[in-house]
């Protein structure tokens, strides 16, 4: 006896039992209760003729130029969207730390200092001092370079003499020293450290901004 199952049952069984094209035309799934012995069919599942179906619409031929035009339009739209996004990424984002705080910006007029014009003598003094500084820094640089060159030459001479004396020792001397990098040194301070100084604990307010 063949059972015709209702629409609801068909919908529940749709995905992995029916083919996509068949599901569109709302066929009925029939399951036979007779157990025939057969060598060909796995189970007695048959699909009835399409019920409640519409005749399929005729597919119209689209002009290839129109198709190309549509593709072109889609591509141009996407490219425009990409360009707009990239323009945004090229703009420099403001840094909160580099900007004036809101409160200061509000009272900018009160915060400006009265402009005091420089006299000619003052301007000349400043100019002369800057020239003097440039000369001083250049002399320092020249002296530094001379010192470094002298030290380099001393080292080169030492390596030459070592090479002449013993080739094995020379090879050992030009090996890299892995303990030298990274080099760390906390440099000179204004005043020397105080022996046994007990630094007092201070208060601090944690103003780290958190975005969750």
């Amino acid at each position: 006896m063949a059972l015709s199952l209702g629409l609801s049952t068909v919908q529940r069984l749709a995905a992995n039992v029916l083919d996509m094209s068949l599901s569109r035309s709302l066929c009925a799934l029939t399951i036979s209760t007779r157990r025939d012995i057969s060598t060909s069919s796995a189970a007695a599942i048959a699909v009835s003729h399409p019920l409640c179906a519409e005749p399929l619409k005729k597919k119209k031929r689209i002009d290839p130029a129109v198709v190309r035009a549509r593709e072109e339009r889609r591509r141009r739209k996407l490219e425009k969207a990409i360009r707009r996004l990239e323009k945004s990424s090229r703009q420099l984002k403001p840094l909160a730390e580099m900007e004036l705080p809101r409160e200061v910006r509000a009272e900018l007029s009160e915060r400006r200092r009265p402009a005091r014009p420089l006299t000619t003598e003052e301007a000349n003094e400043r100019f002369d001092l800057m020239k003097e500084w440039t000369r001083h820094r250049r002399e320092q640089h020249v002296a530094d370079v001379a010192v470094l060159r002298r030290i380099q030459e001393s080292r080169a001479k030492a390596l030459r003499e070592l090479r002449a004396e013993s080739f094995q020792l020379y090879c050992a001397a030009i090996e890299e020293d892995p303990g030298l990098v990274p080099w760390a040194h906390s440099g000179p301070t204004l005043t020397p450290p105080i022996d046994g100084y007990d630094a007092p604990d201070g208060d601090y307010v944690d103003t780290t901004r958190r975005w969750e």
Partner: protein
Amino acid sequence: MRLTWCSRRLLLGGFQFSCRTLSQAARAEPAPPAGQAGPWHLYTAVCLQRLPVVAPPLSDTERRFAALLRQLEFERSLKSSHEIRHEMDIATAEALRASEGDDPDLAEAASLQTAADFEDACAEELAGFEPAPTITEADRAGDQRSLQRRLSSRLVLVVQQRLGAGTSWMLPQGRHQDGATLRQTAEQTLQAMVGPNVNAQFLGNAPWGFYKYKYPKPLQQESGAVGGKVFFYKAVLRGGSVEPVADRVADHRWLTAAELGGQLRSRYRRAVHRLLIDHD
């Protein structure tokens, strides 16, 4: 002998090629230079430095330029909140004087701590802190054995080393033995001279300077060597303590580059001076 182009490249290549390549090429082994007949004893000497602890004082130009920069920064700046508060305090005080104490709000505002009071309190707190002096006791006493002297310069360790019967002022020096590299010899030398508790960081595997000297005739015959070749190694004092070993070292000093001249012999001093930074 006509050199082929590849052997000439190897000989002139100098330090660029790896040891293995050079050792495989027999012609790259340098022949001993003329005028150095006879074997030389190899020594390593250690130039142990204490780096500057304190920045040197500003020169006249530096001081005036620093003042100019501070002035420019002040002129181009906006007023700080502290200055605004100070101006408002002055205005409040003026208003109070004008109203002759009638307005209770003004009186209350004027009784709070003013900006000037706050500044004075801060200055008082700063005056209560005593920083360590840059010119120390050791500077005043001229104690050349102290590490606390001349905090803005580099100090180099110089020892009065026992050599045979007599002593000599030099950088700590030790004889190189086979089986160790020069850098290992230098480290062993330093520990043998100033004790094992010194914490020194050596600057690389290569020597920084060279000095050669001939033994006196009786010593030449006795030892079988013409003289000694000294290779200087640099090290930086990182901590620990320098405890000169009595049977190797009679005395020690910590000297700046300028003061070395008074302590060391001239040719030796020149060799040492070439590897030092001396503009402080």
